[in-house]
């Protein structure tokens, strides 16, 4: 199968959706003429015209709110917020409006809106352009959240997001845009709420998100030679979350590590640990370890940022600690 980058996979998905359904349109800052700040929408305005790929002013609330209104009134908008950091500027529209309107109005209306947004650190973009805020959104009922970790899943999940009748926050790890992988050419979907066991193992379960999945796989491969057999699970969607796959794995191994780029307190790892503590505690043979970013904003300088982002070393330290429990 041909291999393309995650960016290209998303571009292809967007293109195929624009082709299949004339109700689909894209809206965001610099998505049209510039092709998106990360080139994800490159070429789309040229092909589909400025009426379907719309450049907006710098008005995040207007962008998301606009998407909500359009979705209510018969369209299927895909809006973009240039960085997940900017969701904080229009949090009201996302959390109070998009997430709640269907519920508040007793199920009268559907809001088939997709909000695409890049997240993650790694290139010195510093505090306002590097956050990983998905945990915040996991806390808001009414929002689905997709979290692809590779090109194949990215395309499939985006297609599912567009076809979903509910608001979906589609988060793209900006450091994965260049990642290459096999992607089918045709249109296909990946169901939400279905985690992927990326690597089977026996001794330790690692649940990781976004780019951290690849780091976990790398560590698992390396430690195999030391006789440690690690199972790596990629949730793929954070809401709905496939907790059954995670629980089954923890029941098998008895040992759990979560790896996530969000900050520590109330991060993704915290929720997984809580679920396990509630539903499978008697299977635990060792403490649950959360590998996460520290409780600070993302620092700028390279030495500081390197310390900040969870590394393979950090994962290995966690594994080492767990192996002390037999």
């Amino acid at each position: 199968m041909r291999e393309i980058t995650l960016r290209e996979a998303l571009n292809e998905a967007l293109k195929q959706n624009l082709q299949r359904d004339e109700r689909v349109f894209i809206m965001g800052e610099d998505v049209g003429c510039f092709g998106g700040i990360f080139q994800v929408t490159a070429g789309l305005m040229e092909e589909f015209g400025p009426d379907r790929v719309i450049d907006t002013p710098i008005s995040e609330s207007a962008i998301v709110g606009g998407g909500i209104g359009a979705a209510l009134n018969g369209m299927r908008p895909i809006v973009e917020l240039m960085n997940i950091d900017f969701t904080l500027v229009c949090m009201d529209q996302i959390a109070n409006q998009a997430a709640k309107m269907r519920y508040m109005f007793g199920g009268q209306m559907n809001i088939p809106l997709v909000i695409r947004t890049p997240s993650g650190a790694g290139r010195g973009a510093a505090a306002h352009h590097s956050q990983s805020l998905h945990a915040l959104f996991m806390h808001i009922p009414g929002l689905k959240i997709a979290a692809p970790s590779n090109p194949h899943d990215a395309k499939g999940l985006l297609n599912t997001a567009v076809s979903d009748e509910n608001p979906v926050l589609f988060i793209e790890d900006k450091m994965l845009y260049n990642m290459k992988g096999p992607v089918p050419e045709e249109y296909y979907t990946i169901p939400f709420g279905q985690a992927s066991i990326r690597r089977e193992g026996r001794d330790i379960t690692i649940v990781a998100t976004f780019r951290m999945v690849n780091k976990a796989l790398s560590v698992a491969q390396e430690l195999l030679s030391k006789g440690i057999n690690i199972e790596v699970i990629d949730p793929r969607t954070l809401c709905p979350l496939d907790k059954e796959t995670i629980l089954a794995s923890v029941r098998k191994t008895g040992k759990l590590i979560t790896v996530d780029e969000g900050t520590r307190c109330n991060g993704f790892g915290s929720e997984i640990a809580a679920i396990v503590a509630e539903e499978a505690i008697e299977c635990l043979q060792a403490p649950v370890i959360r590998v996460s970013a520290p409780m600070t904003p993302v620092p700028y300088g390279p030495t500081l940022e390197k310390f900040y982002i969870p590394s393979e070393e950090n994962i290995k330290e966690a594994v080492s600690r767990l192996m002390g429990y037999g």
Partner: protein
Amino acid sequence: MLEIRYFEEKIVDQYARGNVPGLAHLYIGEEAVAVGACTCLKETDLITSTHRGHGHCIAKGADMKPMMAELFGKRTGYCKGKGGSMHIASLSLGMLGAMGIVGSGGPIANGAALAAKMRKSGQVVLCFFGDGASNTGAFHESANFAALHKLPVVFICENNLYGISVCMTRHTALKNIADRAAGYNMPGVVADGMDVLAVYKTVGKAVEAARDGKGPTLVECKTYRFRGHFEGDPNLGARYRKAEEVEEWKTRCPIKRLKEYLLEKKIAKRGEIDHLEKDARERVEDAMAYANASPFPEGRETLEDLFA
């Protein structure tokens, strides 16, 4: 202006070489605005800046050594390597911070101005923002609030005609952003952002008015950035700007204009100007040397400075 220009040019080179991580949004072409405006200020006055903040920093009196060090991510930088290009600040200089979130400076400038009013400190706050930012909710809220309370703030819109790739005609319904001021019951003025003296005069009046308690002014400086939105913007913005347009604006280079003006009016001699240029270049080289020699912070330092 020379310092800003040479500093930014140095960053072009250093960024390309990978010594400046992250993003760099350079001020080349817009020097007149920062310099013209900040020259009106007293040392105690304050400014809020944008992601394109190097010019404001230097104009407000920043030392290029810790600035360059900050851009390199070194511990000796203004923000100990934690902020970088987009988040440089120096409280002692009255520079309240460059910001990565467009439009976020307005409410903060207002707050500082409010405090100045409450403490009767006589300070004035300059709030720099761009044409793109003038469309954010935060801007509108700030404008209304400042006018309502007659805060000692001057809103300086650096209209360089583009919000990244989107030309003003495609993002704003108005021709002049200054026209918005009427909607908030404050004076709105347009100035030639490529003419440092014009900026100086216009902003000077606004600053005086603010200091006298007459409230805010919206000063729109028509200017242009000669390079792309960020370093790495292909062909210096050629994807969304025509080369002829760029060339046309380049003929209005503020440094070139001031030079010509000074020589023409015989206010300065060629030799003096040459000396200024040489001096500025040397200072930039010194800053480079300083930054290169400075150490990086230890990884653990990431955990410091969160709380007081």
